């Protein structure tokens, strides 16, 4: 019952948030915090069991004899769910401080919790239909959060978001329907639902429906248009989860489809994965090049997300065990690194009014802790050992060599170099450039943020270090990823 509780606890949070919000903001903060923490604890509590090899399965609802709603916790889902719940918890705590003076908080918190619930549903979905339902729910219900600020830019970004996501969603739906048509409803498990005896053209159509559909969410390059607009428009804590988890949900979908709908052997036979790897490699480099020219910090980070998600898709596209481990680990590692960066960007906006890279000179003097967290996450993004970014790049690199395509190594390292080019100058300017005016220091404005916002930021950045140093401890991402991968590549 634990997975069910994990999925539906945040729904309780929605109601609780609305009710408690009537009493006071404080009550709501504590209530939601407790619920979110409990959810995170539940998702983490599942991990030891999963590592022992047990698979939790719950049939929720049987719509027709062949269609049912079904939760199933495997290693990959447990990893994604724990990542999501933890990042959500951090973002929620951060929101309490960040959103204090914003409008329509009831709506914000309600949808925030709602999205957590659906995301966990996506992670724990046991069959394609369940996956589809939760995936669509959370894609569409994200909209109110994207447009929360209700400025014209936010509205435009929201429109763009919903158009992209609906298109992607319809393609996924098409893929699901097609799969039903070919194979009937089956549980998602390693080995795949489809097999090589089916019509090759249909298989190809299904594959590309899924890839393009999930690719919209996973921000693969021709389908990434919504990302750079939605991130700067959304409130910072939501940008953090948007970037850390929601975009990754697309990659997660790609992995589910690749390994559990098609299966490794079928994909190798179809010969489509090199194309995906090529698209992913292009994504990595192209998005990073675009990021270099951005002045708005959050926009730059959004392009960085596109680039980093390219790594994940690349890891899947290489169709090798090590590379897949790298991809899975990178989802988690990236979530916390990018989470940190967005939370810091939010603090810069809130406390110092800094939106752009060009304004950041000397920010570290005013906000030392924030910038330290930012710097740590930056080094992680570049892949400096012993931070978590290095771990994922290491396994990706080994995976690239494993499948004997050393040229992708250039993409891997080029992406890292570009990450250095677009992130390091921010850190450098914040620490060592002299600000043009010193007026802000006198007024005391832009001083360090209160603990309620700082603590989640620091925790997220510390996780970057912890996930790197303790990468191979059982229960950490690597062990789960290894377990999932071993099942896929039997």
């Amino acid at each position: 019952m634990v997975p069910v509780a994990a999925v539906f606890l945040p729904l309780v949070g929605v109601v609780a948030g609305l009710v408690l919000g009537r009493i006071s903001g404080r009550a709501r903060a504590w209530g939601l915090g407790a619920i979110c923490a409990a959810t995170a604890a539940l998702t983490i509590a599942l991990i030891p069991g999963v590592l022992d090899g047990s698979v939790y399965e719950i049939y929720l609802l049987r719509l027709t004899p062949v269609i049912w709603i079904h939760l199933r916790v495997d290693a990959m889902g447990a990893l994604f769910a724990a990542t999501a719940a933890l990042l959500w918890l951090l973002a929620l705590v951060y929101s309490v401080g960040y959103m204090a003076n914003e409008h329509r908080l009831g709506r914000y918190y309600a949808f925030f919790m709602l999205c957590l619930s659906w995301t966990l549903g996506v992670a724990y979905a046991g069959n394609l239909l369940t996956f589809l339902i939760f995936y669509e729910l959370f894609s569409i219900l994200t909209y109110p959060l994207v447009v929360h600020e209700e400025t014209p830019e936010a509205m435009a970004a929201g429109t763009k978001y919903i158009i992209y996501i609906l298109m992607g969603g319809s393609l996924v739906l098409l893929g699901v329907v097609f799969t039903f048509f070919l194979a009937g409803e089956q549980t998602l498990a390693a080995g795949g639902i489809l097999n090589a005896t089916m019509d090759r053209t249909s298989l190809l159509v299904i594959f590309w429906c899924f890839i393009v559909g999930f690719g919209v969410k996973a921000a693969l390059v021709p389908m990434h248009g919504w990302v750079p607009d939605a991130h700067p428009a959304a409130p910072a804590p939501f940008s953090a989860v948007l970037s850390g988890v929601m975009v990754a949900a697309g990659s997660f979908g790609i992995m589910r489809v690749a390994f559990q709908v098609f299966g490794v052997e079928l994909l190798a036979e179809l010969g489509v994965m090199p194309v995906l790897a090529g698209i992913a490699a292009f994504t990595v480099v192209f998005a990073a090049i675009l990021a270099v020219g951005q002045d708005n910090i959050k926009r730059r980070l959004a392009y960085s997300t596109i680039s980093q998600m390219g790594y994940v898709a690349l890891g899947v596209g290489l169709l090798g065990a090590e590379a897949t481990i790298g991809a899975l680990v990178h989802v988690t590692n990236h979530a916390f690194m990018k989470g940190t960066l967005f939370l810091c960007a939010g603090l810069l906006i809130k406390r110092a009014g800094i939106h752009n890279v060009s304004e950041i000179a000397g920010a570290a003097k005013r906000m030392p802790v924030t910038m330290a967290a930012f710097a740590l996450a930056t080094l992680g993004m570049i892949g400096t050992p012993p931070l978590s970014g290095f771990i994922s790049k290491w396994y990706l690199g080994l995976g690239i060599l494993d499948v004997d395509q050393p040229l992708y190594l250039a993409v891997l390292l080029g992406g890292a170099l570009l990450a250095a080019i677009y992130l390091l100058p921010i850190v450098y300017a914040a620490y060592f450039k002299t600000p043009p005016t010193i007026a802000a220091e006198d007024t005391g404005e832009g001083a360090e943020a209160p603990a309620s916002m700082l603590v989640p930021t620091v925790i997220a950045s510390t996780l970057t270090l912890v996930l790197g140093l303790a990468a191979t401890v059982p229960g950490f991402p690597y062990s789960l990823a290894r377990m999932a991968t071993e099942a896929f590549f039997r």
Partner: protein
Amino acid sequence: MHEAADIAYHPLPALLVLWPLLCALAVRPLGRWREDVRNGFVLFATGVTLLGAAALIPVLSAEHKITSDIPVLVSTLHFVVDPFGMLFALFTTFVWFAATLHALDYMQHEKNRDRFHTTSLVVLGAMLGVVLAGDLITLYLFFEVLGLVAFLFVIHTETEEAKCASVKYLWMTVLGGLALVGGIFLTYALGHTGAIGPIPLEGGTETLRWVTFGLLVLGFGVKAGMLPVHVWLPDAHPVAPSPASALLSGVMIKAGAYGIFRTVTALFRPEVVEEVSEELWHMTSDFGLVVLWIGIATMSIGVVLALGQHNAKRMLAYHSVSQMGFILAGIGAAGYLGSHGAMGVAGGLLHVVNHALFKGALFLGIGAVAFRTGELNMYKLGGLWRKMPWTFVFMLIAAAGITGVPLFNGFVSKCLIHHALVEAYEVRHLMSLDIAEKIYVVTCGGTACSFIKLIGLVFLGTPKTEYGPEVREAPPRMLAALGLLSVAMLVIGIRPHIVLRGVFAPGLHEWALHSDLLEYYLEHYFLSPADLMSVVVAFAIGATIFVVGMKFGLFHLHAPRWFGVDYWYGTFARGFIRVSEWVGGWYERYLRFASRSLRSIRLGYRSTYARVERGWRRTVVTITTGAPGPRNQHFIQNAYIALERERQATVRYAVTRAHEWLRATPDADPARSTAAVDAVRDIASYMATRQMNQRMNVLTDMVRTGEIEAARHSFDDVLAEVRLFRDGVAHTAIELAQRRMTGEDVIRKISAEVNRISSEERFDRRLRVAAAAVHPAIPRVHSIGASARDAMPTPALVTEWRVRGLGRFERASRWVVEIVRLVVETTTQERSSWVLSDRLDPDSIIETRQNIQRYARDMSFNMAMILVVLLVFVLSIAVGVRQ
């Protein structure tokens, strides 16, 4: 690789690495509490590290090779210590201790002392991690930490110069790190397991091996100050505080040398067993030759650049580049000679140690000079030997060491490298190696010249400036640091046997290289006349260059900027950023183009749809009302609507004005004001109706005379013009209403006023003038222009489109509501017309009437069509039946 049984487990290496890192955590709190306690603590920490490194000696002499693990990261951090690693650890900790001792006084001049000491301890830990690492991941981890944290050394002073240098340093480090990790990845592709040991010979293609080797050498070479990636070094080393410079130049660049040493002699070599056939060394030979030549180029170009410097620290930094060339040449020769490379290994590594000692001492000594005089320009100093005699003595020892004076340490290692080069030449008699050997000797001469210049300009000669009382002997702790290093230099210089027998022989044995060559050297060549002669030659060359250079001012020559690789790197980096931004710009432009074309497609669809709809309606009109209605009639209809609107607007305007006027009047009796407003409305309505009738008459007259065709285009403009007369009407109405309130009869007056206004207005003349002015072609041009303007998407327009697009339902519902209202109105008009006529928006009534007309027409046409179809249907059935 040796069997695992050979390697004993010992925790010391891991502790050695962790200890400084843990100590670094305590620096900041202690420094905040009391500076002297912190100073004592850092000295203690480095001292303990030094003792720990020294404790490796007995352990290693018992066990040959020891290992330990720290369980973090990818699996574990793995440390393996062999005699070479121990050698590096020893001199690292030794120089570190001396530099820390020196820094205690020196740093009084600087800010951020806590940061300096924290950085120092972290870098010490990282450095030890690099040289004690047992596998490539561990090595890479500490190498990156070392490179990135040492950034704080470079930028320590935070001057503009330091910032420039540090940025360059940072990017070179990042690039080097990426090259290194790429190389390490590729060793895996070659079938390697990541340990520091031979890569299997059969794995991978030749190209892949070369690429791997290139990346590894590049990655390590950036740190080592190897040509052509040395550009950061001469900028970064001088701007750091002197103790940091000593560490950067003396120790940290050795991490790069260590990496290249391991690459050549441990990674790319055959299996470590006693009897290996010479052919298997073929690859190592090739790689060694490449490194050798890189070394030769680095040493010679480094020395040439050093000769042109004025800043003493900058000169020393260029000498670091040059001395790294010596080391690389030694390592290269070792690789080239394969299993007989003992001389190269010993020469290269001993020079690593020696360079650490004398370059450390030189930087610390120059630091002491700068500490007292605040001057680094050699040409502005002089005669300091009187003021700072001990500093002078120690500097002299260090200079003797670096120039290779016999009985000082540099002599031994330089001779060893020289012998290695000669041996390399003798193996295959490659002409190029003969040249390399000659270059080597000349470079030694250049080095000698440089230090003659340094000592001569700074310590000897006459002072160029008056020294104040603050210029006196350096503080005792600085002298102690210098003394420590000097003693070590003398010991190695006089008794190299200790190091050669104690460290190199077991180390070489460990890697299955022939170590008897070293014994041979010590017995036959050490302080032999031939070697002493080569030193004399070098000094002769050096003295000659010095005299000639000083006389002709050759040391002040500077090559143009584009001559250095530095300039091209900068250009390339800036170009890359610009290209990125350019790509971004094009991408934005593409996005804008895409969205604009999407919008124009939508627009095109809409206008086509409207055109089709209009054509359809026209057809309907034609069919239902017979001949196509004359255009003029259509125009008159529209004009009537427009004029009617204008009439209503006029009345409204007058009423508004009346309200304003009443508000402005102080005595406002509610009843009176209502009456007044009524009166104004009454009068204005009368006047406006008259006005409208007159205007309408004008139009119908023009239709009759046929002038309307010309006037049609200007009608809208004229209507806009006559709008101004609303004001007159309102004015008159208010005035007359006032008079009527007093009981005056104003009916005649009203007529007169209307006539007056109409005559002022001259509606017909306005129309004619406008018609004459407008050439028939102009409106067309105008309309094209207008439509072009419309086609330009403005935000307002976009919003409007959206409204229009969404408004279809709205329009439909409004239409229904209006119909209902009209029905209600017509049924109830007689009883209470005022209620509804007041509430209904007159505009919408007009529109609705039009709509009703239109829909009725459409409906009737549709009915007609249905009838026709039915008829055809019936007919066809009838025909069918008949057949």
